[in-house]
């Protein structure tokens, strides 16, 4: 059922390109699209400038000088942890785009200099970065709609993607944007974990795109976890590289920084509480920390904890596909999805082309958001311009949605129904012993539980007239959880971050990309590696 609302309540707009999501990827997409001279509208679920996981953090970018041998070494190092699933050409493009783009923000971000007077471009504070990006987006002539979550994509009478429709949660009423091309930059999905800044990222873009027939890829690589002080959202990991870790009896756990850190901590957490002390942080760093990461110390200061001398409990927050890899499959250099006219960028897109089977961490992931955002924005603008002359006039009446679940506002849900469904989804995707440490048997059990959630999602009213977004978020998280575990079950080996205790070895027969899609019936397919470099649809092709 499509959204019902009267024209009087609806803001009807027309643009060439619609960007869904105003975080790092979405703002770069908007800037790149506007640079092509087309009309651009950006909608954000929250506020463009504070929404998403970059605004609350401090991204360092994958920042490699353009000397060929230096670039080649950086690419080869990352290929070594990609387990065959990345593409050196995409890595080179991302490095180049990042290197040339960040200095262009001068005037919008106050890049500091180090003691030697060298301007520091690589790492930016999140709030200032996104505040600057918002200004740049506005100065580029893009119209921003804040607090305007997209609820569904729209198609014209020929079935071609033609915009989206959503809800104005502060202004009231609905919005509809007719656009020749749409960029999904709505972020990844951590299933409402306590990861800092992640509550706007519930997989909505995956859902909308999958309803339109888009494919996903790499969804098995969706089990990254990040450390934080227990009971807090402050998942800034830097200081924890200095941590000493102890169990409940005060026994030193003996693990430190390195590739096995998360697994070591996770094993300890499965045995009981784990406490940390940061007494190895050097004195001069302690003095500087508040102006290096101004939010880092807020939880300690406010709860009266001296983390350098006192023990405090730590935990791991699930990051899902945010610092995981999976997302919408992009099939060409413009980051177009398998649905013509629909583009994907940032965490909403599968990052396999540059990270393969391993999280890119903050550096590669920020470079991906910045780069894929601009590629998608430019590609969308060029496609919109191509189709402009042949396009029929803007007629909002002929647009229709994709009959997605959770859009029926006529039948409201029982109180607490959506919260109960969210808890059932989280009970499968958050626990360390189900998702970080995977096994075939547990994946089967989780998939059964998630199928049962899906049955309830399809059979019961989820809508709430007061908040039409919540139902869609629940559908999106249920669908995303099923995709993640379906993919994890299908990849019958261990590779990169996807580790199965029943199949601990990497297997050559799975040297392949795992594509999937579908909602009621989830389907999947392994594509040989070469297909990643051979787009299967022609750029700009339309049915």
């Amino acid at each position: 059922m499509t959204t019902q609302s009267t024209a009087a309540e609806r803001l009807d707009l027309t643009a060439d390109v619609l960007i869904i999501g105003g975080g790092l990827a979405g703002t770069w997409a908007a800037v790149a699209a506007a640079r092509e001279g087309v009309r651009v509208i950006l909608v954000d679920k929250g506020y463009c400038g504070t929404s998403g996981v970059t605004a609350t953090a401090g991204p360092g970018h994958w920042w490699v000088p353009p000397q060929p041998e230096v670039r080649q070494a950086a690419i080869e190092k990352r290929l070594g942890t990609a387990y065959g699933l990345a593409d050196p050409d995409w890595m080179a493009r991302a490095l180049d785009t990042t290197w040339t783009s960040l200095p262009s923000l001068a005037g919008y971000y106050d890049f500091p200099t180090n003691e030697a007077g060298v301007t520091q471009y690589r790492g930016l504070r999140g709030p200032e970065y996104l505040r600057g990006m918002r200004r740049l987006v506005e100065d580029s002539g893009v119209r921003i709609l804040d607090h305007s979550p997209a609820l569904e994509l729209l198609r014209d009478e020929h079935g071609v993607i033609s915009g989206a429709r959503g809800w104005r949660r502060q202004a009231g009423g609905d919005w509809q944007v007719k656009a020749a091309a749409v960029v999904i930059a709505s972020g990844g999905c951590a299933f409402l974990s306590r990861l800092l800044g992640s509550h706007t990222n519930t997989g909505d873009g995956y859902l909308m795109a999958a309803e339109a027939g888009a494919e996903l890829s790499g969804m098995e690589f969706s089990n990254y976890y990040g450390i934080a002080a227990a009971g807090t959202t402050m998942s800034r990991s830097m200081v924890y590289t200095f941590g000493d870790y102890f169990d409940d009896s005060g026994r030193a756990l003996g693990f430190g920084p390195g590739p096995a850190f998360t697994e070591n901590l996770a094993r300890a957490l499965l045995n009981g509480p784990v406490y940390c002390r940061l007494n190895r942080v050097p004195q001069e760093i302690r003095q500087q920390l508040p102006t290096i990461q101004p939010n880092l110390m807020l939880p300690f200061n406010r709860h009266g904890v001296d983390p350098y001398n006192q023990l405090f409990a730590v935990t791991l927050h699930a990051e899902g596909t945010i610092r995981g890899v999976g997302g919408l499959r992009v099939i060409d250099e413009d980051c177009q999805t398998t649905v013509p006219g629909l583009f994907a960028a940032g965490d909403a897109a599968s990052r396999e082309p540059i990270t393969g089977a391993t999280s890119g961490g903050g550096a590669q992931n920020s470079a991906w958001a910045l780069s894929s955002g601009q590629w998608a924005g430019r590609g969308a603008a060029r496609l919109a311009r191509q189709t402009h002359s042949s396009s029929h006039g803007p007629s909002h009446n002929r647009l229709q949605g994709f009959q997605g679940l959770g859009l029926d506002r006529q039948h409201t849900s029982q109180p607490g129904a959506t919260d109960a469904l969210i808890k059932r989804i989280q009970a499968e995707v958050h626990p360390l012993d189900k998702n970080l440490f995977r096994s075939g048997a547990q994946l089967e059990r989780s998939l059964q539980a998630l199928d049962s959630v899906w049955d309830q999602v399809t059979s019961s009213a989820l809508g709430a007239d007061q908040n039409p977004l919540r139902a869609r978020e629940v559908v999106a998280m249920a669908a995303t959880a099923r995709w993640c575990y379906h993919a994890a079950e299908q990849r019958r080996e261990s590779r990169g971050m996807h580790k199965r205790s029943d199949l601990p070895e990497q297997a050559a027969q799975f040297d392949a990309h795992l594509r999937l899609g579908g909602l009621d019936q989830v389907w999947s397919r392994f594509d040989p590696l070469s297909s990643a470099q051979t787009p299967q649809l022609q750029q700009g092709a339309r049915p």
Partner: protein
Amino acid sequence: MIELIFSDLCNGCGKCVEVCPTNALALGGDALPQIRDPSACQTCFMCELYCSNDALYVDPDCEQPRALDPEVIRASGLLGQYRRDSGWDEWAGDPRYPNQHWRMDGIFAMAGHVGANVTPLKSS
């Protein structure tokens, strides 16, 4: 999560309602911001950062509300801590609060060289 809004400090600009990414705040009948839905708060501290009057207080506990004494918080010196340390607004250019984010690379590199020297603790 968001706990306190000091109405005597608030100038009614509405910026916190605008910037809250999860729509946890709303303007009340008196045109001053109110906590619309504390459970919607994601404990990201963005409202504090954008409040030039330091009129909001977010407790770091993201799991349950805490019973806080507003006057204790007011006297704690914690109001406006994030905005000050970030060097925003009137703190811009203050040599005590420069943007030193760029030091992260060096700190990560240093972490590998600060040797672990861990002795068991007494259980407390």
